């Protein structure tokens, strides 16, 4: 398996059970999902699922996804696509570490969204590697809990997912 990750965007009909159909197809065909996000799109008829997966064999996986009646369009995003992920991270707030944490928050252009005497919750947005770096930085201070949304991505320019025919 290569380390190379691929991000695919899947346009699906916005109806009950769609996510099960899509994720079920991954399980069935023996592919792994690293991260998955789903949400509304510019059209109320469709949802957009952004999946980060192993680059190997993703062409076969895409062809399999096209067999689902609810799948309208699948596209591999360009390498230089705009990627963002959001993380909330709860870290121990100890006086001897406070200034270092606040410096990191500053440098990463993160923000503190909850603050108490013994802990704080930080929100960071950025490319996944930036989030990884921030997590690493916080580890010594005692991460209590964290949650990441998984990556969302769009291609650059005016090109859209539905604008080009496969």
């Amino acid at each position, binding site marked *: 398996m290569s380390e190379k990750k691929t991000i695919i965007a899947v346009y699906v009909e916005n109806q009950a*059970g769609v996510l*099960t159909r899509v994720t*079920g197809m991954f399980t069935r065909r023996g592919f792994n999902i690293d991260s998955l996000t789903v949400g509304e799109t510019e059209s109320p008829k469709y949802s957009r699922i952004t999946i980060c997966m192993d680059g190997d064999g993703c062409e*076969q996986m895409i062809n399999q996804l096209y*067999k689902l009646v609810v799948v309208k369009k699948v596209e591999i995003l360009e390498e230089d696509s705009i990627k963002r992920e959001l993380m909330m991270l709860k870290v121990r707030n100890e006086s001897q570490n406070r200034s270092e944490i606040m410096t990191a928050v500053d440098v990463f252009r993160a923000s503190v969204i909850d603050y108490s005497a013994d802990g704080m919750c930080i929100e960071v947005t950025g490319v996944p590697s930036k989030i990884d770096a921030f997590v690493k930085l916080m580890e010594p201070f005692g991460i209590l809990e964290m949650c990441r949304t998984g990556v969302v991505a769009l291609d650059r320019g005016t090109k859209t997912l539905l604008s080009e025919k496969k």
Partner: protein
Amino acid sequence: MQLKGAQILVRTLIEQGVTDVFGYPGGQVINIYDALYEYKDEINHVLTAHEQGASHAADGYSRATGKVGVCIATSGPGATNLVTGIATAMLDSIPMVAITGNVPNSLIGKDSFQEIDITGVTLPITKHNYFVKRIEDLADTIREAFRIAKSGRPGPVLVDIPKDVQVGTYEYEPQAVTEKTPLPKVKEALIDEAAKLLAECKRPYIYVGGGAAGLGMGEDIVAFAEKIDAVIGCSFMGLSAIPETSERFLGMQGMHGHYASSMAQNEADLILAIGVRFSDRATGNVAKFAKKSKIIQLDPDYAEINKNVRVDLGLVGDVEDSFKRIVEKCDKAEHSDWLYQVRELKAEELRFEEEIAAASTAALTPKQVFEIINANKPAKTVIATDVGQHQMWTAQYVRFDGPRRFVSSGGLGTMGFGLGAAMGAYVATKDPVVLITGDGSFGMNLNELATAVTYKIPVVIVLMNNGVLGMVRQWQTLFFGKRYSNTVLDRKTDFVKLAEAFGAKGYLVETPIDFKRAFNEALQANGPVVIDARIDKDEFVLPMLPPGGAIDDIITKVR
């Protein structure tokens, strides 16, 4: 007009051209059955002994005609009993619509009596499925189910209808039969590329699968083979697609394929694959499959290109159209060296067959059984099978006289498929139907004999009885040091009495002469006949490519 949901369902089935359905009533489909009663002059319902039988019957109905097979079952166990039949249809790309009832919307999710999430259960084994929450969507959902089932690469669609939707009332307006969604036409450059590869090759092999069989392309393929001097082989699912009268047809290739067909595929320098999916049973070790050959693949399904075998050129879209355009672009060619080479292979195959036949000292051999069937079966006979040795012998020996005359579970390999499927094929065609089965497979769903008797379905059941699970035993002999774990049936079933108990006729035969007499008498019967044909427990299906093996590992001798 205003109709009840159950009436809308049945009216929509009729509107979509359905004339026969197979099913079994139950609590959550009573309303549907009430509507079937109302429209019984327009739609024929066959009551099977078990929902699994209904699903296989709908499948056999479809295989024999190309029409969409329809089965109906109640919620819970009725629905889950369809599962094996739906999966069988899925793996062989058979168009089917399965209708299930469910508990009313108000009881969904409460573990109500006979409630099961059948759309969840069948998610991986349907092309698509629906839970019809609102009566407003009912008719269009049924129409859409038919469109999906028959479009592109066909497959089964399940529609689950809760009881309140069946009971409710809504407006219904008949519509025309839904059309298949047209497949995209392949780009001209790819057709040119295919024609170029075909023009350059020296040893062409046309490899025909279920996709081509479903489209009835046989005659055109033979004509093309004549034109470019190619030979033709097929996958298991491609059987009966090619007229057996063609000398260029080498038969099935693969694990139990004809020696010449498998060898020729291995020697070819160009394989034109039409509607095949390169199953592991067909390819053996993919790393060693057809190494000397370029492969052009025609298929309606993108996902079949480079799934199991890397191909040089994949033409995805309308297979018939692509094929026609390729034919037009190809000039006449001659490959006499290649045909000579193939003739040598066929001669070798004949020698192996004679050796195998000579090795058997049994009173009645499988080869004799099939020679008698071939010589005596009437024109247009549909041959259905179960799964196991008898199935592979059928694939090797039976001479099919036209497309859709072979009804057998390829991909899923469903033991117990045969009797239901044979009944379905008869209901669809009213042509003679012969079921080849084994004592293992027949034991799984023989309850459907009751159905065949009730509906006077004259299926001739050739029960190749060896008292063992022959195919597994063969593997145990070859690969497990003859440790016959749980494959010796040692049952005391008297199949003649069993047939009689069901109201059918039974014969016990142990010699070719008796078999021939019984077979011919059975063909005249007005209902099902069971012929218990005793064969030896150590007959082998040969040749055999061991699982995961390559062409060099082919086994052609008994011991």
